[in-house]
């Protein structure tokens, strides 16, 4: 009996490893739920650590392709690493199922038949928050992001849907530790709301300090979902209560897949799942669906592509639909951090987008 | 080689302060000391002589516990100190003015004297007394060790050893680099120390001067004792002077 080989290359050590580990755990859980079989074939996953370094990622990917001859690749968290390994993967014609990285290049002009994304296009959550903040009609929003292209993209995404007044657009250092200066500026500028994107540790630093400064009660803070998910809540604690954020997935989504995922994830790993875990889970579901559709016949390129493009299954956030550029077309929800019992979690408080298509899809001419 | 016999008339042996027996040692695989024996009596001033590279400094380092002895025994004040660490040796009452001064560049003159001051053995030496001995140091007391002239550093090294109020003071080329007047100062000071009952082991190239200062002399040649005796015997013995090739 054949098996389906999967290369899972992710950030499993170093400061960014929290995300990679969550995604991996979610992926593993799905594999277990499927009885270690995708469409009847045994699942054989090899994990490797990219150390959040582009060249290490490229090497790991090459190894998976050339040595392990994998049928699918997945796992990369960070978009800059994705872009570094993309060409290698596409040249080898191995389908890649992205469980997090959603660079605009691959959504638009560089879209590729071997790239499939179950998570989002990077701008999605920013856009959703832009739309929600717009709907609240704030008079003056303070925008803050780190000074590098991804930071600027985030604010561009936000402004694509937010058309109101921008109190200020401020760029911070990459990997910034202390935000006292920025917080003082914000306080002095008296905006009606603050939107920021700060990746990784800087994000946690910012929220902790914003809360510590007592500003959370004075000026509401809006964040993209990945800056206010279970991992961040665990790190910051109850002072986060009240923060709004947007996400394609929430703990409370009432479909069976999600219920089972959340419940078992908690049981197995003894922590609340994050959206990275949900995305990892979804990636496995997509692969399973495709293999099922192919009836185990993985060799055929065109058939594989068709199977992945047309896969229909219930993901952790409901029925999954792949767009023409291989990025999901999905609903995006509004969440708010709240106390539930003696736990602090993200509550689902609304829906911002229904069947949202990303902004780059138009530019994609899929070959 | 066998030590030239010191004459039997040198009197009954005083209780020895330091007694070195058949000492072997060196640096790693390089053997320098080949079975060295000598003794320094209480209150005695003892000179260790020999040409360059004969093992005088190595002997001192081995006494201080800075080099490990390969075999042999060092008794100090009745206790075996052969295997002790340098700090334990100092605690027993040895102090050294090392070859090459080795003052601490990042400590001021005053700090050298405060930091290592040990109150014991009658508590004779204090920073104040050291300044009396070397007024020049007093002028420079706030200067760092590195800013001192060569001679000033030498004075400081002596002061630093005295301040531990040792039972046995070891001076390895303590007058090196000192101007004649200053050198005289040191000799004068050693004479005073000697008169006050301080035991001293001294290494110096001014053999003539040592003859007026030291009670006993030991000459080293290639890590072995080749001659021992008192100043009068040294004065008289031609073979001894050959070892020193003066």
């Amino acid at each position, binding site marked *: 009996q054949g098996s389906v080989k999967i290369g899972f290359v992710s950030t499993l050590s170093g400061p960014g490893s929290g995300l990679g580990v969550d995604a991996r755990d979610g992926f593993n859980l799905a594999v277990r739920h499927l009885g270690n079989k995708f469409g009847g074939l045994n699942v054989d996953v090899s994990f490797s650590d990219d150390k959040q370094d582009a060249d290490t990622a490229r090497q790991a990917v090459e190894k998976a392709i050339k040595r392990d001859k994998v049928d699918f690749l997945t796992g990369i968290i960070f978009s800059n690493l994705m872009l570094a390994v993309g060409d290698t993967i596409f040249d080898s014609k191995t389908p890649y199922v992205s469980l997090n990285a959603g660079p605009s290049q691959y959504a638009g002009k560089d879209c590729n038949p071997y790239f499939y994304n179950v998570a989002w296009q990077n701008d999605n959550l920013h856009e959703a928050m832009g739309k929600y903040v717009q709907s609240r009609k704030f008079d003056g929003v303070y925008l803050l992001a780190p000074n590098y292209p991804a930071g600027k993209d985030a604010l561009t995404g936000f402004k694509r849907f937010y058309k109101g007044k921008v109190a200020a657009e401020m760029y911070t250092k990459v990997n910034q530790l202390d935000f006292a200066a920025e917080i003082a500026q914000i306080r002095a500028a008296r905006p009606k709301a603050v939107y920021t994107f700060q990746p990784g540790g800087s994000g946690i630093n910012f929220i902790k300090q914003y809360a510590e400064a007592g500003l959370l009660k004075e000026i509401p803070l809006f964040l993209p979902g990945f800056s206010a998910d279970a991992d961040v809540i665990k790190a910051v604690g109850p002072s986060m209560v009240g923060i709004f954020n947007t996400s394609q997935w929430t703990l409370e989504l009432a479909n069976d897949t999600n219920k089972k995922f959340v419940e078992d994830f908690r049981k197995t790993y003894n922590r609340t799942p994050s959206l990275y875990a949900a995305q990892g889970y979804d990636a496995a579901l997509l692969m399973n669906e495709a293999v099922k559709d192919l009836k185990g016949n993985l060799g055929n390129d065109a058939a594989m592509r068709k199977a992945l493009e047309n896969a229909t299954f219930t993901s952790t956030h409901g029925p999954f639909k792949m767009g023409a550029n291989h990025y999901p077309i999905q609903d995006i929800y509004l969440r708010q951090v709240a106390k539930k019992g003696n736990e602090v979690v993200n509550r689902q408080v609304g829906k911002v987008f229904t069947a949202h298509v990303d902004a780059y899809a138009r530019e994609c001419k899929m070959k | 080689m066998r030590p030239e016999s010191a004459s039997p008339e040198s009197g009954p042996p005083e209780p020895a302060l330091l007694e070195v027996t058949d000492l072997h040692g060196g*640096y790693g695989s*390089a053997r320098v000391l080949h079975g060295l024996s000598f003794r320094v009596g209480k209150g005695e001033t003892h000179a260790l002589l*020999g*040409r*360059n*590279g004969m093992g005088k*400094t190595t002997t001192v380092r081995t006494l201080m516990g800075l080099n490990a002895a390969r075999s042999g025994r060092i008794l100090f004040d009745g206790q075996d100190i052969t295997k002790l660490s340098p700090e334990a040796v100092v605690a027993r009452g040895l102090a050294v003015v090392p*070859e*090459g001064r080795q003052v601490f560049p990042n400590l001021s003159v005053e700090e050298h004297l405060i930091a290592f001051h040990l109150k014991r053995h009658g508590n004779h030496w204090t920073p104040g007394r050291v300044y009396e001995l070397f007024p*020049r140091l007093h002028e*420079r007391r706030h200067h760092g060790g590195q*800013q*001192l*002239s*060569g*001679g*000033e550093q*030498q*004075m400081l090294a002596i002061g630093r050893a005295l301040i531990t109020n040792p039972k046995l003071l070891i001076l390895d*080329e303590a007058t*090196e*680099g*000192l*101007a*004649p*007047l*200053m*050198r*005289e100062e040191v000799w004068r000071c050693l004479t005073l120390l000697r008169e006050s009952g301080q035991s001293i082991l001294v290494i110096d*190239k001014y*053999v003539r001067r040592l003859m007026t200062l030291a009670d006993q002399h030991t000459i080293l040649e290639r890590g072995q004792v080749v001659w021992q005796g008192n100043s009068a015997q040294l004065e008289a013995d031609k073979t001894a002077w050959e070892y*020193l*090739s*003066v």
Partner: protein
Amino acid sequence: MSLVAENLVKNFGALAATQNVNLRVEGSGVHALIGPNGAGKTTLVNLLSGALTPSSGRVLLDGQDVSRVDMPGRVARGLSRTYQITSIYPDWTVERNIALSVQGRSGSSFRFWQPVAHERNLYRQAADIAEEVGLTSRLHQPASALSHGERKQLDVALALASQPRFLLMDEPMAGLGHEESGQMVQLIRRIAATRSVLLIEHDMDAVFSLARDVSVLVYGQIIASGTPDAIKNDPEVQKAYLGDDHAA
């Protein structure tokens, strides 16, 4: 052939280590500089050799102002020095130590390609110089295994190997035993036969047997200059430096 200090001043903060020193070292032979500890002798050597820049005043080498010329520049003009506290390459063999110095005066050191080990003449000259200072038997030993006295000899060898016309020697006898001191005196005499040597030394026997002229530095100032005999009998010098035992 002349080395001249002209109104040299060097201040370390408030301390005037060199105060308006005028000194002239000329022709072959030994010019001794003596003075109490801390008088500023080493400082003067540092100023003359270019290790320190003067606060004011000039250093003239063969009539040319070299005050702003760096140490390598002065070596190229034939001025070398030894160190009071020996300064050598402890991990290198004696031979390599000296060869390095020979190399400095025999062709460019910006040669990247020829293996230096093939330059036999460097090592031949090094061996000659080792012979001259009495280190032949130690030629292939690492300098770290030399005794204190031998290191002094090596220090002199390094200076000699750079073929100086002027040699500044800062206490070459310090730490040498009687025999070695004697050898060093011979060596300096030989060196000084064709070169100009400024000798700093506290060993008065050596100074008076070698020097043609003697200058006395006290508190940064030259208080006397003259022939050895004149200096020996100068009461000022006796009071400041020599003490009684060298009188007459």
